[in-house]
């Protein structure tokens, strides 16, 4: 089998460490090499699951936008901005999921859906500041739960530094 993407990226990291870094005399060049190694590590972390993550993420955002349609259609939220938001969400989810597994197409779909989600979250923060609308607050936390999953995914240099204990807690939360 030929070296796949991850194996090749690991090979680049190894070449950086074995062949290049020992030859670098300046601290600046060594720092740049370290940055490259970490950049590659973050690419490796998302390489295999990139399409799956986008497909499942898009599916979840569609579900949240559908929930938003229900919440903002309730009489309590019935006003002009809510109606505009309902229309925005309906339009976003009316576009069928892309059939392709190309990362660029899935990313474009993700951005379109997340643009609608952004507007929903801003509206929910307005509601949260003024009342204790139960369905709206439940939706708010569902959205944050989804975004939290995305924010904790992959690899970051913070994970071995400032966020080390935080990421350990996150992993134990996932296990539960």
């Amino acid at each position, binding site marked *: 089998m030929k070296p796949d993407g991850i194996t090749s990226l690991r090979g680049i990291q190894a070449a950086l460490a074995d062949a290049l870094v020992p030859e670098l005399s300046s601290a600046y060049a060594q720092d740049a090499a370290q940055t490259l190694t970490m950049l590659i590590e973050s690419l490796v972390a998302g390489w295999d699951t990139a399409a799956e993550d986008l497909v499942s993420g898009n599916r979840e955002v569609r579900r949240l936008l559908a929930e938003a349609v229900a919440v903002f259609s309730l009489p309590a939220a019935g006003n002009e901005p809510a109606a505009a938001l309902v229309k925005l969400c309906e339009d976003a989810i009316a576009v069928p999921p892309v059939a392709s597994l190309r990362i660029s197409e899935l990313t474009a779909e993700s951005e379109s859906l*997340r643009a609608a989600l952004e507007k929903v979250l*801003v509206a929910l*923060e307005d509601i949260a500041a003024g009342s204790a609308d139960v369905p709206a607050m439940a939706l708010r936390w569902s959205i944050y739960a989804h975004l939290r999953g995305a924010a904790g995914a992959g690899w970051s240099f913070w994970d071995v530094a400032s966020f080390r204990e935080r990421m350990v807690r996150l992993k134990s939360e996932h296990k539960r």
Partner: protein
Amino acid sequence: MGFSPAPLGAGDGVKSNEGPVAQGQSGRLITGWFQVRILAGPPTPPPMTTLESRIEAYLRAKLPAASEIVVANLQRIPGGASRETWSFDVTRRENGAAVKEGLIIRRDPDASVLETDRDHEFRVVQAVYGAVPVPRTYWIETDGAALDRPFFVMGRIDGCEANPTRVLMDPRYFPSRERIACEFTDILARIHAIDPASSGLEFLDGPADAGGCGLAEVEKWEAVIDHDSLEPQPVLRGAFRWLRHHLPPPAQRIALVHADYRTGNFLAAPDGEIKGILDWEMAHLGDPMEDVAWACIRPWRWLGNELIGGLMERSEFYRMYEKFSGLKVDEDAVRFWELLGNIKLAAIFITGARSFTDGRTRSPLMAFLGRNVNRLELEIMDLLEAGV
């Protein structure tokens, strides 16, 4: 037969007749016998020796009374994502005596995580010199005549470390951590005690009144996201909205705010003395609690636990700050500023990523930082969940 590396991307390799040379600004890197498509970007920098001789020429113009000026040991310093930092030694003969000193050049980058005015930073450092430890400033050049881009020159502070890994993990620094924590807090209080009006700092941006500090910074950083974001930002937009609904109480005093005061931006000697506070490019007038909170945000807790700046417990930081400054640490205000601090750092990373994507820089650091915004989002949501 020699082996030439294959192109990095399938289908991108084009046989070249140019031979094994390398160049860097055309969107193609010729490596071996292949051309590999690369990101468009700024011209490849000139060799170090050229820069050294140009600095010598510059210093000859600035120091007409000196002779035998020699620049040596020119090195680019890692870090400093907003401005290039170059260190060098200069020897010269002046009034019959040999003089040797270390200097630093802070030069505008091809692109940056921050679009800041070097004149602003230079004037602030000049104004606070003597009140708090900062490098001595020498000259500023606002055009690119001497070194292609604007820059300023300041003194180098030797025998110190800024790198948080070394300050916090080098055994030489272990015995002095308590002193570093104490000086870190004391100097912050001294920055906040500087009177902007009598120190020549009135040119700095600031809110109209003490009640407007929070909103002014929210608007500033939301504008950065508006301008630079490459994709929807639900977490940041939601958090901005939350902040607008939960503005902090009026500042106890409108003070000079360093705005990047943290472990990593001071020069500490192994005995714990802090000899220089760095990176003043975001300084402005505002609420001192903004600095207190920025020092507290998780990204600067380098040891991965809850110690503020990797140096001390939060309660100890607050206690010392109150003692040194005479101000009360308003925990509600700090929570607001801590949330905004994480958003601000995300905005800075997003600006860097934008520079990379737009081809204004090829710095891998900019791409790398842009790929780390998600952990800041995690922290932002943690703070929101905690009710901030």
